[in-house]
Each structure stands twice: as C-alpha cells, then as structure tokens.
C-alpha cells in the first residue's frame, strides 16, 4: 500500500449553478476504512459525493484518489479508476431487468464477481424488472451494481437505508459490514446517524457545506453536543 490515503479531498469549493454549496471542504479516507459523513438535510453530503464522483466537479481544490488528482476527470474515468457510487434514491434502471442492470454495470469493466452469491435475493429475481422490486431489493441491486464493472476500491454509499423498513435496514447494514470485511474502502453518507456511526471507523460532521467535526465513530456517538447540535438527536 502506498503512503497516500485512498481518498483525499483537499479544500474543495463546489457550486450548483450560482449557489455555492461546499466551502473549502477537506476529508480523507484511508485504505480499508469505513468513514461516515453525517449532517442535516441540505448540509452538502450528497454534493460531496457528487464532487468526488465528478458529477458536480468542484471549482477549486483538489481531490486525490490513490495520490492522483481526479477532480478534472469525467465520472466514467473516475469509475474506471476504482471509485464507485451507489447514489441517493438508488437510481437503478426500472425498465431493465435485474440481470440487465447488473450486466450493464459489469460491461463497463472486468470485475465479474458473482454478486448473486452476495445478494441471493437478487438471484431469485434476475428476470424481473428492477422497477417492480421492493425498496430493500432495489437498494441491494444498487449496491450490487456498484460492485461489478471496473474493480471497486472506494465505494461511495449515499443514504443506503433511506426509506427502508427497520428489518431491511439491518440487512443493508450487514451487507455494508461484509463489504468492509472484504477490504473495500467505504465513504458512507447516512441519515440514520446512529447506524452510520456504528458502521464507521471515523466520521465527519458537515454543516452548510463545511466540515465542522471529525472524530472516531464511537467518539461522536457518545458526544452529546454533536448529537444534539448537528444531528438533532436528543
């Protein structure tokens, strides 16, 4: 392993059209780490992931992936370098079947990990249109799609448990844990702060486009001030 962290975001400023969303934002994710990014709605969590992925490139600052600058790259180049995004709202292709969704993603690269072993629920529904899956199944499909294709070294997970029933949330967190065990580095955006902090080794708290806190996941989980002021948890 190189001395570089897998991902280093260095002082980026990102705009949506004319509105300034991220301000001089920096963060790092080391190899094999699971790092959580938590904050209120509209704080800039999703934008951070989009910036890293090249979907909303920053106007200033650098993003280093394995020591190489990627902030000018197109999303598909970033994906081929090993960053994979499982986006908010899953954004699976509803009119395609499960198998087509998976094969499509696989076609962009060489990884042929048999995701159906990891997600048996999908195996049963290969020929079903993705739009007809339940929310949890769609989330599994979105993660599966993020794992095939070019080898994934860093997985950007955006709100994987949003809108899911508690039982399903558990399934998803199991999957995330399993991924961590397999050595995949994860940057996790999660609304459910408690869950995020449980899963994460470290966490950043983001507020109005700025990182306002950084600590180990457990630390933050037990810091009442953080919980109350930044996460609204009492």
């Amino acid at each position, binding site marked *: 392993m190189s001395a570089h962290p897998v991902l280093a975001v260095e002082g980026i400023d990102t705009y949506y059209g*004319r509105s300034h969303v991220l301000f001089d934002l920096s963060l790092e994710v080391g190899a094999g780490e699971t790092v959580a990014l938590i904050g209120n709605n509209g704080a800039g969590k999703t934008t951070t992931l989009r910036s890293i992925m090249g979907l*909303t*490139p920053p106007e200033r600052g650098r993003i280093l992936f394995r020591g190489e600058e990627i902030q000018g790259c*197109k999303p598909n180049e970033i994906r081929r370098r090993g960053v994979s995004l499982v986006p908010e709202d899953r954004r699976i292709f509803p009119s395609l079947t499960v198998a087509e969704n998976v094969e499509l993603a696989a076609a962009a690269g060489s990884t042929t990990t048999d995701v159906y072993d990891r997600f048996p629920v999908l195996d049963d529904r290969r020929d079903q249109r993705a739009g007809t899956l339940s929310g949890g199944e769609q989330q599994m499909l979105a993660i599966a799609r993020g794992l095939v294709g070019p080898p994934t070294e860093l997985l950007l997970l955006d709100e994987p448990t949003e809108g899911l029933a508690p039982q399903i949330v558990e399934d998803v967190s199991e999957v995330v844990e399993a991924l961590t065990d397999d050595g995949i580095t994860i940057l996790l955006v999660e609304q459910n702060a408690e869950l995020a902090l449980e899963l994460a080794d470290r966490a950043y708290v983001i507020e109005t486009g700025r990182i306002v806190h950084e600590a180990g996941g457990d630390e933050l989980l037990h810091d009442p001030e953080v919980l109350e002021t930044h996460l609204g948890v009492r």
Partner: protein
Amino acid sequence: MTVLDRLLDRSGARTDEVLGRRGRVALVLVFCGLAVAGPVIDVIATFWLHVLTRVMIFALFAISLDLVFGYTGLPSFGHAAMFGVGGYTVAFVTLGPTQNLLVTIATAALASATVALLIGWLSVRGTGLFFAFLTLAFAQVLYLVAFNDLPAQLLGADKITGGDNGLVGIPGYELFGVEFGGLFEYYYLTLVVVGICVALLIRIANSEFGRVLQGIRENEDRLTALGYDVTRYKVIAFTVSGTFTGVAGALYAPLVRIAHPSQLFWLTSADGIIMILVGGIGTLWGPMVGAAFITVFEEFATVVGNWHLYLGVLFVTMVIFLPGGIAGAISTVARSPREALSNARRAGRRYVRRVRGDRH
C-alpha cells in the same frame, strides 16, 4: 419580506435591475427618441419608418411571448395562432363593418384572447415540451383551417379566410376622422399602441401577479404548496400574452395589407422564439432588442441570395457563445467590461472542453 418575495429573490435580481427604474427610463427614452425621430426619418429615409414600424410590432410580439415563455417558463410554440388571429380579425373588421381603430383593435384583442384562453386552457395540461407541442399542434390546426378556408367550405361561402391567398387589401385604421393609411401616420399609431402595450406588460410583469408567474418558473411545486392555483395562473398568463400578441398581429396585417395563413404558420412562432433567444430569454427587454436585431438583420441580409447561411451561422454561434442573448451580453458589459472579457475567454475554453467530451 414575505416568503414569496424571498422565493422570487434569485431571479428577481435580474429582471428588477432591467425593468426597474433604469430600465423604464431607458424605455421611455427610446419611446421619445422614436417619436422625435419620426419626421426626420420620414424626410431622409422614409423606408426606415417601415422597418421601425415592423421592429416595434415584433418587439411587442416578442415581449408578450416572453411573458409566458421566459418569464413564466411556458414554452409556447404556438403564438403564431394569436398573431394570425389578430391579423385576420383586423381584416374581417376593416374590410367589413368599420375601420375605427378602437373597435378594430379591441375586437382583435378579444378574438385573440379567446383563442389564447382556449389554447392555453387545453395546453397547460402538458408541461415542458408537451406544452410546447400542444400549442404547436393547435396553431398548425388553425393554420390549416385558414389555408384550406375550412369556414367557407363549411358555410358554403365563396371565401372567408381567403385560403392560401389570404385576405388582401386591408385598409388602414381610422379614428375620429383621422386616417392611418400612410406610413408616417401608421408609424405613430404603432408607436402609441406598442408603447401602451409594452407599458402594460411591464406593469403586469412587475405586479404581484407577475411575481407569481416568475414563481411558477422558479418552483412550481412550492407555489402549489403555498396554495396558489398554478394552473389558473398559467392559463391567465397565456391569455394575457396571447392578447398582446394578437394586438401585434392586428398592427402587422394592415402594415403589410394582407392577412395570410403564413402569419399562423409555425415559422411565425419560431420567429418569435428566435427573437427571444437571441435577445435574452426571460428579461422582457432582451426579446425586444432581439426583435429589432433580427428584423434589421433580415433587412440587410436578404439582399444577398444565401442569407439563410448567415442566419444559420448566427443562430449556432449565438446559442453556443452567448447563452444569455444580447441582453446577457449587454448586462455583463455594463456591469464590468473586464469581467465580460474574462467571461468570453472562459466561454471559449468551456467550448473546447465540452467539445472534447466534458459534460461540465
């Protein structure tokens, strides 16, 4: 500040700046300039009275179209319908019962308002491009009705719309014994009518109602959530816009002495859209500048046989490099010439980047 005002703040900055005090002063100056220049032009270059009259008419067409298109965010591809209906109504009235200016213009406005209400009411069921295509379809149906003189065929008359010949020989207007047949008189008539209409339109745009329209463009859902009947506002906006477009058509037909199906044809709608986009969409004043630019451009360009080539190149380069249209360019230069220069450089670099496949 009410919530609504806040909601409108973002875009309000742009329009208020133009249609605020400074913009209105500029408009009044242009109006006075045209009024003073009339006799001078009449003596040294009579024909320019004709060009300027057309410029004013199309400025009214463009600003009224922009009220729905850019200001409210309803892309109408069918404004030719109202433009043409205005013209045909003038033909019916002046060739028939009376040449009285007030009666004729009022009838034309009423007729186009009715058509606009109908088309608007039906078309707002679709959003975005669907709205655009609905308006296009209705306008084309009207065009074909006029082209084939369907009314005459249904009623067994010799001619009503005059088919592809249109209705020729429209006389000028008359008011209190004054004839507006000559170009000089017609120029002033147009100046006054367009002046009043533009003032009204700006008034409407800056009113509470206008702010709602702008709100519809910015965030329709939020307005709905605030309890506004957005659909109704859209229909009213379309009707208001269509009425003024009809007045523009009512001024155009006597100028060219003919009401013709081509005034209902989709290319007439396209002309209006082109003026808006070239001038600067959503700014209300930009489209008027666009109308002047396009009208004068055609005036000079049609002397050469292949002028469509230049028109085509103009469209392509303007859209790519001047997305804000002429109004955008003027605003930037007025704000800061240095910034304009760096903007231009950035636009160039951005073009190269996009051509290379970067999507940002």
